[in-house]
C-alpha cells in the first residue's frame, strides 16, 4: 500500500527551513492564544491540540511525501485511541473498517447502499437506546456519526464513478481527519476536492493559509463571545425598535461561532497539505439569495449540489430547464431541512432532534428553510432569464462609479436585513413568538429611529468606502491575501489577543475592561436572565453540556475531578432528595437526605437543612442568625464545613471575637429566589427563634424572581396562596399556553412590583416576630465587576422595605474569575473562594456593625 498520492508534484510538498520555522512560530502563537482564550474549551480543544498540532505539523512537513498520508492517518488514530482508550477505540476502528469495507464489496451498487442503510439503522438504534449496548459502544457513536454521516455518501457516490484508485492511504485519510474526533460538527469535505487539492500548490502557501484560517477562526470565536454577551438580548426584553434591531442582528451574528469552528478545522487540515477551499466567503457581504447560498457553508452547498441538485435536475430535465431548476432547488432545501435533523440526531449524545419534539420549533424550522428555498428559487428563476453580471478573468481598469457602489451597498444592506429576519425566525421557539417580537418594532422613540437611520447610513457609507478602497487597489478584505499580509495578520491578531489574555490572567484588567476580557475568554458575564437564553440550531449542537463534549473534557484529569455534575443537573438531581411543600416554594429538601453536589458529598440534617442540626429552641445566651439564600449560601460544590456560612460562624466564635456565642442556621435552598425565600422566612425561620435573618442576595433578584414566578405560577402550578400574586397573573395576562419568553415580556412591567412585594413580605414577617432583617449583598462571581451598579439598583428597594444592608466588601479579593469559580462550567465559587467570602463577610460585619445595630458586638 503506497502512501504516494495521485496528482501531487513532489516539489510542491517541500518547504524551506526558514519558511517552516516562521510558520511554526505563527502556529505556536496561534495555539497559545487559543489556549489562553480557552477557544472551544467545550471540547478541550487546546488540551488536545496545543502540543499535538505544532509537533505533528513539524514532523509531517519534513517527512518524505510518501510517508505523509500514513503519518496523518496514524496521528488521527492515535488521537482516537487517546480519547476513547484502547478497547472503545478498537470498536470504532472496526466499525469504521466495516463501513468503508462495505463500499468496496463486489456486489451491485444498490446492494452496498442497502447494507449500509441497515448498518446505519442499527447504529442509530444503539444511539437512541433502542438496542442495549455497553458504554464503550455508546460513547463512540457520535464520533462515528461525525465521521460517516455525510462523507460516506460522498465516498460511495465517487467510488461508483472512480476511474483510478487514489490509494488506500488517501481513502483512509479522507475519513480519519485529525480534528474530526474532537469536532463532531464538521464541514462536509468533498472527496474529490480532498484528492484534487492535496499539495496542489506549493506547501508553504498551503500551510500559511492554514495558519491564517486558524487565526481567523479564533478571532471569529472572540467576536461571537462578545456578541453573545453584549448584543444578545432575550426576546422578553425586546420592547421597542432599538432592542429589536440588536436582537435581529445578534440572531445572525451568533453564526460567527460556526464560521469560526469551520475555519479552525479547515485551517488545521491545510497544515497537512490538504489545500481545501474556504468554507465561508464573506457571507455577510452577500448581495442576493443565490449569492448568499454560494457564500455560507460552501461545503454544504457543494454536497447538496452533487447529491441532490444535479441528480434531481437530470431526472426532471424533460420539464424544461426552468422547471427542472426550480424543482431541483426545492429538493435541495427539503433535503437540507431533513438532513439538519439527521445531523442533530447523530451529533447529540442524547440522540435528540429538538425540532421534531416541539411543534413551535418544528414550524419555525420548516418555515425558515421553506422561505429560504422559495427566495433562492425566485432568484434562480430570474438568473436563468437574465444575462449574468459581466465577470472578468483578469483585473482591469473600470471607471469608478459612486452610484454603482451605493447600489451594491444598498443591495448588501437589504440582504443583511432579510437574513437577520430569517435567522431570528430560525432561532425562535415558535413562529408566534417571532411575530410577537417583530410586532414591538412599532413602539419606536424618535431617538431610536434616528440612531437606526444613522447606523444604516454609516453602514452604507462604509460599504461605499470599502468598494472605493478596493477599486484603488487597497482591498480591506482580500479573498487571497499575500503571504506577507497573512503573516502580519496572524502575528498581529494572535499576538494582541495573547497579550490581553495573559495580562488579564496575571493582573486582571480593571472594571468593565476586565469584564470584557472575561467575556473574550469565554466566561458568561451576562445578566442572569440572559444566561438562560439558548438560541438556535447550532447553539443547541455546540453546548458544553452534551455528553460527548463532556467525555472529551473528562480525558483531562484537571477538569474531570471537578466536573461530574454540571449546571442543568443542579443539586440534588435525585428527586428523592426533594419533597413538595404545597406552597409557593413548590419543593424543599427532605430531612436526612444524602447525595452529591458537583462531586462532593452532601447531606441534610433532621430539619432538611444543609447544616449541623441545631435545636429549634435557641440556647440561652446565644445570638442566633438564620441565613437565607440560594445555591451560593447552601454551598453548591463545596464540602459542608467549607462553605462561607460555616467559615463565618467559626470566625465569629473564635475566642474574643464577639460579645457572645453566635449560631448561624443555614436555611438556604438551591435555586430559591426572593419569592420562595419570603416563604422560608415566614414559615421555617421562626421555628428556630433567630435574633436576625441574613438574606444573602446577589443583586440580580429582579430578573431571577420574574423568571421564577413564571415558572412557579405557570409551569409548576405552585400554590400561589396570596391575592397579590393571583392578581399579578391576571393583570400581566400571564397564560400557560404562551411561551415563557412571552410571559416574561408581559410580566416585565410588573417585575419591580413583584420584587418589592417579596421584600416587604420578608421584612414584615421578621418585624412581626421581633427578628432583625438584614440584606447581605454578595455579587456573583461573574458580576463582581458590576457589583456597584447591581447594588445601587436593589439597595433602595430593600431599604424601603425595612432591611438593614450589609455589603460584603471585595468578596473574591479581586482574583481572576477562573481562580474563583468551581470549574470552567460552573461559575459558583469554589472551596477556597468560600473561605475568602467567609473571612470578608466577617471583616465587613465587623466594620459595618454600628449601622446594622445588632444586639451583639464584634471586637475590633
Amino acid at each position, binding site marked *: 500500500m503506497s502512501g504516494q498520492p495521485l496528482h501531487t508534484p513532489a516539489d510542491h510538498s517541500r518547504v524551506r527551513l526558514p519558511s517552516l520555522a516562521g510558520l511554526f512560530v505563527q502556529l505556536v502563537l496561534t495555539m497559545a492564544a487559543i489556549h489562553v482564550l480557552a477557544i472551544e474549551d467545550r471540547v478541550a480543544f487546546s488540551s488536545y491540540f496545543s502540543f499535538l498540532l505544532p509537533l505533528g505539523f513539524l514532523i509531517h512537513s519534513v517527512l518524505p511525501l510518501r510517508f505523509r498520508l500514513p503519518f496523518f492517518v496514524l496521528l488521527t488514530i492515535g488521537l482516537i485511541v487517546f480519547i476513547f482508550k484502547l478497547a472503545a477505540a478498537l470498536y470504532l476502528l472496526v466499525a469504521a473498517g466495516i463501513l468503508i469495507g462495505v463500499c468496496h464489496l463486489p456486489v451491485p451498487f444498490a446492494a452496498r447502499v442497502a447494507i449500509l442503510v441497515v448498518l446505519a439503522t442499527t447504529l442509530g438504534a444503539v444511539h437512541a437506546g433502542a438496542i442495549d449496548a455497553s458504554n464503550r459502544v455508546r460513547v463512540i457513536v457520535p464520533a462515528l456519526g461525525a465521521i460517516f454521516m455525510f462523507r460516506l455518501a460522498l465516498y460511495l457516490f465517487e467510488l461508483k464513478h472512480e476511474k483510478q484508485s487514489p490509494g488506500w492511504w488517501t481513502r483512509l485519510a479522507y475519513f480519519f481527519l485529525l480534528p474530526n474526533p474532537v469536532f463532531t460538527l464538521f464541514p462536509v469535505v468533498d472527496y474529490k476536492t480532498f484528492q484534487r487539492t492535496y499539495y496542489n500548490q506549493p506547501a508553504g502557501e498551503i500551510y500559511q493559509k492554514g495558519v491564517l484560517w486558524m487565526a481567523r477562526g479564533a478571532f471569529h470565536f472572540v467576536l461571537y463571545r462578545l456578541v453573545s454577551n453584549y448584543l444578545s438580548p432575550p426576546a422578553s426584553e425586546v420592547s421597542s425598535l432599538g432592542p429589536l434591531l440588536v436582537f435581529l442582528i445578534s440572531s445572525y451574528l451568533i453564526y460567527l461561532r460556526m464560521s469560526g469552528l469551520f475555519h479552525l478545522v479547515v485551517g488545521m487540515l491545510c497544515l497537512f497539505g490538504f489545500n481545501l477551499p474556504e468554507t465561508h466567503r464573506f457571507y455577510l457581504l452577500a448581495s442576493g439569495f443565490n449569492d448568499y447560498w454560494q457564500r455560507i457553508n460552501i461545503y454544504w452547498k457543494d454536497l447538496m449540489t452533487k447529491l441532490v*441538485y444535479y441528480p434531481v435536475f437530470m431526472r426532471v430535465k424533460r420539464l424544461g430547464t426552468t422547471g427542472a431548476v426550480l424543482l431541483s432547488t426545492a429538493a435541495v432545501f427539503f433535503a437540507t431541512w431533513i438532513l439538519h435533523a439527521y445531523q442533530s440526531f447523530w451529533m447529540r449524545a442524547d440522540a435528540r432532534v429538538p425540532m421534531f419534539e416541539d411543534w413551535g420549533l418544528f414550524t419555525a424550522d420548516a418555515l425558515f428553510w421553506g422561505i429560504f428555498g422559495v427566495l433562492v428559487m425566485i432568484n434562480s428563476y430570474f438568473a436563468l432569464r437574465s444575462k449574468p453580471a459581466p*465577470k472578468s478573468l483578469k483585473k482591469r481598469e473600470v471607471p469608478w462609479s459612486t452610484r454603482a457602489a451605493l447600489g451594491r451597498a444598498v443591495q448588501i444592506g437589504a440582504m443583511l436585513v432579510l437574513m437577520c429576519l430569517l435567522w431570528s425566525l430560525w432561532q425562535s421557539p415558535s413562529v408566534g413568538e417571532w411575530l410577537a417580537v417583530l410586532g414591538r418594532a412599532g413602539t419606536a422613540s424618535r431617538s431610536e429611529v434616528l440612531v437606526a437611520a444613522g447606523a444604516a447610513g454609516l453602514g452604507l457609507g462604509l460599504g461605499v468606502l470599502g468598494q472605493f478602497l478596493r477599486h484603488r487597489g487597497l482591498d480591506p478584505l482580500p479573498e487571497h491575501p499575500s503571504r506577507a499580509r497573512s503573516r502580519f495578520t496572524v502575528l498581529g491578531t494572535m499576538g494582541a489577543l495573547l497579550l490581553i489574555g495573559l495580562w488579564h490572567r496575571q493582573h486582571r484588567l480593571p472594571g468593565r475592561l476586565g469584564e470584557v476580557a472575561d467575556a473574550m475568554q469565554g466566561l458568561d458575564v451576562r445578566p442572569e436572565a440572559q444566561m438562560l437564553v439558548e438560541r438556535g440550531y447550532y447553539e443547541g449542537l455546540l453546548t458544553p453540556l452534551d455528553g460527548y463534549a463532556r467525555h472529551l473534557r473528562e480525558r483531562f484529569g484537571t477538569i474531570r475531578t471537578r466536573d461530574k455534575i454540571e449546571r442543568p443537573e443542579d443539586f440534588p438531581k435525585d428527586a428523592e432528595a426533594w419533597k413538595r411543600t404545597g406552597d409557593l416554594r413548590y419543593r424543599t429538601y427532605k430531612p436526612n437526605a444524602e447525595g452529591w453536589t458537583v462531586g462532593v458529598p452532601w447531606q441534610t440534617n433532621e430539619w432538611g437543612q444543609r447544616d449541623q442540626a441545631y435545636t429549634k429552641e435557641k440556647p440561652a445566651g446565644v445570638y442566633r442568625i438564620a441565613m437565607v439564600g440560594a445555591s451560593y449560601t447552601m454551598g453548591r460544590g463545596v464540602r459542608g464545613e467549607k462553605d462561607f456560612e460555616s467559615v463565618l460562624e467559626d470566625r465569629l466564635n473564635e475566642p474574643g471575637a464577639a460579645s457572645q456565642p453566635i449560631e448561624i442556621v443555614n436555611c438556604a435552598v438551591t435555586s430559591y429566589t426572593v419569592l420562595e425565600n419570603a416563604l422560608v422566612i415566614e414559615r421555617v425561620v421562626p421555628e428556630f427563634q433567630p435574633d436576625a435573618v441574613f438574606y444573602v442576595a446577589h443583586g440580580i433578584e429582579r430578573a431571577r424572581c420574574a423568571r421564577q414566578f413564571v415558572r412557579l405560577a405557570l409551569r409548576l402550578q405552585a400554590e400561589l396562596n396570596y391575592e397579590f400574586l393571583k392578581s399579578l397573573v391576571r393583570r400581566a395576562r400571564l397564560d400557560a399556553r404562551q411561551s415563557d419568553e412571552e410571559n416574561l415580556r408581559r410580566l416585565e412591567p410588573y417585575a419591580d412590583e413583584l420584587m418589592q412585594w417579596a421584600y416587604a413580605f420578608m421584612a414584615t414577617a421578621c418585624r412581626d416576630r421581633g427578628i432583625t432583617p438584614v440584606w447581605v449583598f454578595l455579587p456573583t462571581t461573574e458580576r463582581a465587576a458590576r457589583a456597584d451598579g447591581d447594588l445601587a439598583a436593589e439597595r433602595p428597594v430593600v431599604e424601603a422595605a425595612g432591611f438593614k444592608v450589609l455589603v460584603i466588601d471585595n468578596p473574591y479579593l479581586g482574583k481572576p474569575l477562573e481562580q474563583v469559580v468551581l470549574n470552567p462550567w460552573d461559575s459558583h465559587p469554589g472551596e477556597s473562594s468560600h473561605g475568602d467570602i467567609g473571612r470578608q463577610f466577617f471583616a465587613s460585619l465587623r466594620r459595618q456593625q454600628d449601622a446594622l445595630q445588632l444586639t451583639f458586638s464584634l471586637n475590633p
Partner: protein
Amino acid sequence: MREQDIHNHLKQFILDEFLPDTPPEELEDSTPLRSGGVLDSIATIKVVAHVEQAFNVSLDAHEMGEFDTLAQLVALVMEKHA
C-alpha cells in the same frame, strides 16, 4: 465533429454567456471555471443544457461536477461522442 470545432463552439458560448466583456485570449483551456467563480450551479446547468442540445449527447448527473476547465469540458464531450 472535430475536437477543435467543439472547443471553439464551447469557448464562444462561455464567453458570450458568462464573460461578455472578456477578450477571448484571456479564457484559456486551463482557466478554472467553477472553482474560479465563473460558473455557479445555475451556470453549470446552462452549460450542460447547451452541450446536450448542441452536440446531441446526454450527460450523467455525476458528470456535471466533473469539469472545471474548458479543456475538461471539451474532453467530456469528446468522450460522449466516442
